């Protein structure tokens, strides 16, 4: 198994009355709640943490893009990645990912990733996402365009990276007379593409067709199993190859401590911060057209509860998170390896408003007590 250290860079200083006063941590949560003076310290602590992850042996460090919210304060993940090219030495740097449909011009993404790849000596992983439903409100991008723009932007970026320019590009949403990016990326044929998602049939099929690693995010372990089974079956039956473990990634918040009891006690508030505050999306989660009617019907039938309805115990039992002693965590990760055939763990140590000393402890324990047992 390979290990990637992921950071959302949340704004941890939400007010005491957040739960009762605000129905969303996104879109219309007043930005007066952000304090730039404290933000200076928060950003730099998070950056130090990502740098430390390389020292502790993580294979890569990961960042992502979110807008106008308290859940993740990286509107430009490429800026953070640029800093990481200078502050890390040899680990991979995953941007998982750039939210393609939100951007008027995918060429900018193609150019920035190419820059980062050249500067870092070919250490970039380029994730592509659609962006959350909330971000279609924040950026006023029509959510009914989301899938078309995602696929068009993907195709344009891959072609810009791999075919000699200049060339002309015409698709519904993007039209260019001169696609001719300078620099070109260093990795051949291009930086690896990852597709994070929540397991919709459309996304899993697309990832399997392109052989891109598919990453399940914040889902019950049973849903992760179904998505990976689907990926592996599509790979074999529809696309004629056997999916490898390094095509199946999972993003599961993890907390390790001396015993199960201590781990649960120390992790509880921070995990609930993530699922009950950070992922509180009010009316903004599912804008019209963001999902197909078929996907929505499947979601409604699956009976999955909203994050806000899940207790800390639900989150552990259903496998949204892994919390426990080193033995417990190793046992649960072994299930991912043996039963789910998943070979990439994207996690980290810093969740919600977890105090810095517990972040450091979680990180150290995971790296020294869990990771070695799963290195194959």
């Amino acid at each position, binding site marked *: 198994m390979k290990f990637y250290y992921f950071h959302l860079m949340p704004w941890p200083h939400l007010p005491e009355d957040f739960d009762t006063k605000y129905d969303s941590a996104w879109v219309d949560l007043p930005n007066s709640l952000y304090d730039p003076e404290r933000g200076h310290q928060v950003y730099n602590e998070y950056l130090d943490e990502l740098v430390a992850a390389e020292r502790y042996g993580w294979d890569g460090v990961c960042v992502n893009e979110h807008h106008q919210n308290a859940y993740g304060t990286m509107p430009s993940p490429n800026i953070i990645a640029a800093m990481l090219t200078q502050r890390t030495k040899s680990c991979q740097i995953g941007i998982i990912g750039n939210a393609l449909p939100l951007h008027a011009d995918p060429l900018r993404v193609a150019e920035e990733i190419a820059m980062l790849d050249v500067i870092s000596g070919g250490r970039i992983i380029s994730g592509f996402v659609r962006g959350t439903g909330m971000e279609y*409100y924040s950026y006023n991008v*029509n*959510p009914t365009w989301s899938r078309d723009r995602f696929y068009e932007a993907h195709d344009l970026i891959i072609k810009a990276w791999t075919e000699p320019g200049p060339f002309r590009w015409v698709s519904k949403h993007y039209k260019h007379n001169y696609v001719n990016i300078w620099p070109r990326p260093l990795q051949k044929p291009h930086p690896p593409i990852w597709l994070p998602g929540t397991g919709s049939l459309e996304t899993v099929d697309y990832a399997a067709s392109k052989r891109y690693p598919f990453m399940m995010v914040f889902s019950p372990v049973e849903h992760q199993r179904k998505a990976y089974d689907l990926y592996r079956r599509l790979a074999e039956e529809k696309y004629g190859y056997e999916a490898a473990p390094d095509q199946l990634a999972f993003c599961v918040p993890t907390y390790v401590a001396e015993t199960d009891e201590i781990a649960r006690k120390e992790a509880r508030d921070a995990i609930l911060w993530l699922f009950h505050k950070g992922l509180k999306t009010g*009316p903004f989660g599912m804008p019209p*057209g963001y999902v197909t*009617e078929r996907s929505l019907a499947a979601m409604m039938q699956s009976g999955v509860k909203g994050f806000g309805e899940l207790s800390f115990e639900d989150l552990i039992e259903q496998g949204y998170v892994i919390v426990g002693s080193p033995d417990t965590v190793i046992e649960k990760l072994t299930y991912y390896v043996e039963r789910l055939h998943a070979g990439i763990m994207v996690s980290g140590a810093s969740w919600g408003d977890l105090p810095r000393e517990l972040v450091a402890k979680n990180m150290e324990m995971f790296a020294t007590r869990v990771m070695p047992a799963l290195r194959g």
Partner: protein
Amino acid sequence: MSAYEELFVEVHGVKTCVRRAGSGPPLVYWHGAGGSGQWYPHHDLLAQHFTVYASDHPGWGASDTAEWMDTMQDYVLHYDSLFRTLGIERPTLVGHSLGGWMAAAFATTYPTQLARLVLINAAGFPSISETAPDFFAAAMRGGPQFAKLIFHKMEVAAAYFPPDPSPEVRLRRYREMTSTARLAWHCWFDEKLPLRLSRLTAPTLVLWGAHDGLFPEELGHKYAEAIPNARLLILPDCGHMVPYEDPQAMVQAILELPEAQTP
């Protein structure tokens, strides 16, 4: 409730459902973001005086979805073809809310093809209110807050907004909202519409429920000022949902409107 027939008309490969009843001169009724998929009491009242054609827009009700239809012009041209197919000539065109914007767009494109134009709490007229609610967020939130935004008569709202909608209703609304978003996600108006409204020639009624949380009365006045010789009627006891809140007043006001002279 009188008997109506359900016609399925294919226009440019898009199957469109039209419910028809009554006799007399033709009247076409265009629903808003909601209000599709069935024959309503306001259709029935109109059918006592007109041959009523109440259609489900493509993307709504029993009509096909055509994802490429994402501008008002797509709908205007679609309906021009549909009218030809059904042999509807010089109808009275009634549009509510999103359908009102559509009707205004149709009238500016084909000003001489209408006997009358009726715009009811219509979208489409430019407004830059800092405080206007975001329709889509409000609609997705749903519940009593949304009902209060669009209804003044809350006893009427109760019939249309059950507190716990079934999965079927939720899916139907998501489809309607998706079709609405194709047309109106970025904004609910067309900056060029006021200028184009000067092209209108048919007798026009601008009918407005006074307590509209989405499109305030002021927009009704602006519409009426921009349309040559338009008649403005404000209903003081209605909200956005005039056809549901006071269908009798709606029909009465339409009947009082003269027809255009035959050219």
